[in-house]
């Protein structure tokens, strides 16, 4: 399929990093075991146990003097949906933005600790944040399509990377994958802003997956949408999780329970309190605070 073709194109720049990591399988194993202990979970081989693609170890983030994340360690398996929940101001979006270094754009943000993407610490000096973001897509809270045509919106990432061969097919495939093709195929020239909120958000998802990234980060992608559009987005997330790793921040606990395989609960002060399979978090959490939060006693 075109999907695999795109993968080859899309990963021209950073392959060297991936190679250097995967060429060292022992190193990979070591991490799996080690973090299995620190995170206090059943290890990487739970019901969803894919290969670990993102792993943070002792991650601290400061905004000026204020500490937004405290010593966060977790690992995210690939091709699954990982939800991050918690009360507002708990640092869940901050964590998400650490993964693709969007925090770099905030002037006084400072990151300590490690965040590994496919084994490579993304905060190493030799990592170009722009190249990193080309392999990690992002969908934001408010749908933010560009004021360009639907076609140009989807083609944006491909054009950035000069992957303009077979552009039409790639745009079509991305729109199909985002379950938007049937609604827009006759009006690709119209502005993306003409679409409804839910369609705009699916357009943003199409834009993100058009370049075939390894991971898609979603920052409360349905919070600005009505219930129908929300359920469409949720279905879509579960579909794309077959090919992509999805990390989704949400303040909607039902949503996390419905769509995610694993759930991380952040509580006030930027602390990761519990991280486990979603079923376990919602049915039998280990921490009393998590139980209180989930049952609505605080937060």
């Amino acid at each position, binding site marked *: 399929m075109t999907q695999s073709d795109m993968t080859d194109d899309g990963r021209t720049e950073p392959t060297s990093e991936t190679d250097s990591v995967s060429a060292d399988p022992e190193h990979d194993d070591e991490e799996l075991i080690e973090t299995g202990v620190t995170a206090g979970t059943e290890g990487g081989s739970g019901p969803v146990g894919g290969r670990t693609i993102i792993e943070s170890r002792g991650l601290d983030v400061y905004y000026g003097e204020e500490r937004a994340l405290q010593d966060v360690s977790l690992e995210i398996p690939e091709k699954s949906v990982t939800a991050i929940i918690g009360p507002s101001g708990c640092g869940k979006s901050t964590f998400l933005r650490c993964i693709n270094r969007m925090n770099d754009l905030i002037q006084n943000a400072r990151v300590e600790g490690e965040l590994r993407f496919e084994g490579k610490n993304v905060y190493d000096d030799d990592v170009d944040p*722009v190249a990193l973001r080309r392999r990690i897509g992002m969908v934001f809270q408010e749908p933010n399509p560009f004021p360009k045509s639907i076609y140009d919106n989807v083609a944006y990432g491909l054009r950035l990377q000069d992957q303009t061969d077979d552009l039409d097919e790639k745009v079509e495939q991305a729109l199909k994958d985002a379950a938007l093709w049937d609604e827009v195929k006759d009006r690709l020239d119209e502005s993306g802003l003409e679409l409804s909120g839910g369609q705009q958000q699916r357009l943003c998802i199409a834009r993100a997956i058009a*370049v075939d990234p390894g991971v898609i980060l979603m920052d409360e992608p349905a919070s600005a949408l009505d219930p129908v559009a929300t359920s469409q987005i949720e279905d879509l997330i579960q579909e794309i999780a077959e090919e992509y790793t999805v990390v989704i921040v949400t303040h909607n606990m039902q949503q996390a329970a419905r769509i995610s395989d694993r759930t991380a609960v952040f509580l006030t002060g930027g602390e990761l309190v519990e991280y486990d399979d979603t079923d376990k978090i919602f049915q039998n959490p280990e921490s009393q605070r998590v139980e209180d939060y989930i049952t609505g006693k605080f937060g």
Partner: protein
Amino acid sequence: MMSIDTDTDTANPAETSFERVSRRKGQLFRWLLLIASFAGIVSLGVLLVYVFIDALQPLTADAIWYPVFLLTVVAPIAGVGLFYWRWAPSAGSIGVTLLGLPVLGLMATGATFVIVTDVLGSTTWFGFVVALGVATGLFAGFGRVRPDASFETRFVVGLFLYWFALIGLPSVPIPFTNLATVEFLPSLMGAITSLPVVPTRWAALFWTLVVPVGAGVTSYLAGHRPRRTALGAGVIVLGAALAGGLLAAQVGSSLAVGELVVLGTVVPFGLMIERYRVAETVDRRDLRAGLALPVAVIGGLVLNAVLSGVLGIAGPASWLDWQYLTNAPSRFAEQAGIYPALVGSIMIMIIVVLLTFPIGVGAAVYLEEYAPENRTSRLIRINISNLAGVPSVVYGLLGLGLFIRLLDMGLGSILVAGMTLSLLILPIVIISSREAIRAVPDSMRQASYGMGATRWQTVRRVVLPEAMPGILTGTILALARAVGEAAPLLMIGTATTAFSVPGSFTDTASAMPLQIYAWSELPSESFQHGVVAAGVVVLIVVMLTMNSVAIVLRNRYQTRGES
């Protein structure tokens, strides 16, 4: 619940009463605001009417002229306007566009003609365009042959090509000798202009303007029409331009003028009709109705002119007529014209545009998108805002000190005038461009960076396209201010009256505001009330045209952003 409430309300015998709250102060305030709003507008309006009456002298025509004018020009236009208003409202904007485009095209044609023939000279222009075309063609060919060349390679190759096309290797003095190297290699442009056989004026314009425009029309039409139609349209453009030239030559004007007038009016008119025909949103009947306005205006004016000529009716003896636009200043009010000052103003504005647009927009982009938020950048921002309020005389003094005394660039030259006016409006351009850039929602930048765009890609593909309408509006309004400035030009020694058209950008020239000022000093009544008023009208028309271009640009981009 509701029904119970209303029941109790109506059932309640002791209905509460409300006292009146006084609004007298508010009413007074409102009327004062209304007066304030109208005071400026009305007084300016009265002044403009007064000036227009002085310039056009509408009461000096033969008695019979008024009914003829009313019947041939006013009545048809009023009829068409009434028709649009009552029966075809959506045709109105089409009609205004179809009329406005050729008028704007005509003004642009005039400016182009002045620059190409009177300022640059058609031979230089021909050489410039051909050399530029050759360099561009070679550069594109290089891109075709080596599509994977790095940015650095392409930059060096491009620089090399354009350098030799336009600049060449001029003679450079060899240090420590009094020898200057012979001109080692003239530029392509220089080589073309020094050829023994150069095309005549109309031929030069034909090859450099008519043929490219015809090719452009063909390639535009080829996008959605059959090849044959597209090619035919291109050939028609060439033919129409030639026919216009021949016709103009017959009636005593020149081939070059005729072909440019046709090019500047017929081509935009035709292209606009084509766009309306292609657009699905435009009704065919509205398009046909829209044609009525240009037909009524142009047809009415022509008919009026023909009738007046045949019947020997004298129109109003306006100060503002064709002769006024094309003559040089004169001691005799009847022969005085504004042409050299108009050309001077245009040339100054060319310098101003070339300087302020890149520098102003560049500074705004840097300050908004790149500059770190620290004390230095804050200081710079505050200072730019303050500079916008500095009186223009002070900028004139700066120009005098900097460009003339320090850099010795020649008293009152067009270049110095342009640079001084650029200094004057740069802060305005920077501020308005910064506002436009800041109005681009941050979510757009986030989206772009999130897609793995570099800062340059984000600025180039998201921020600038979004901010461009605001930037253009602000820039054009600032340019309109520069056109009307007199004080800084006086400071740098620009001529108040120039009798001939400047030959180059280092010549002295006059500008319209200065020429008007000079005329107003003359004792004669006809200068003070006629010639000056006509000059003011020309100046105002130029400024209004620039402003309306700004408005059109803004509306166009806005509707595009929404649709």
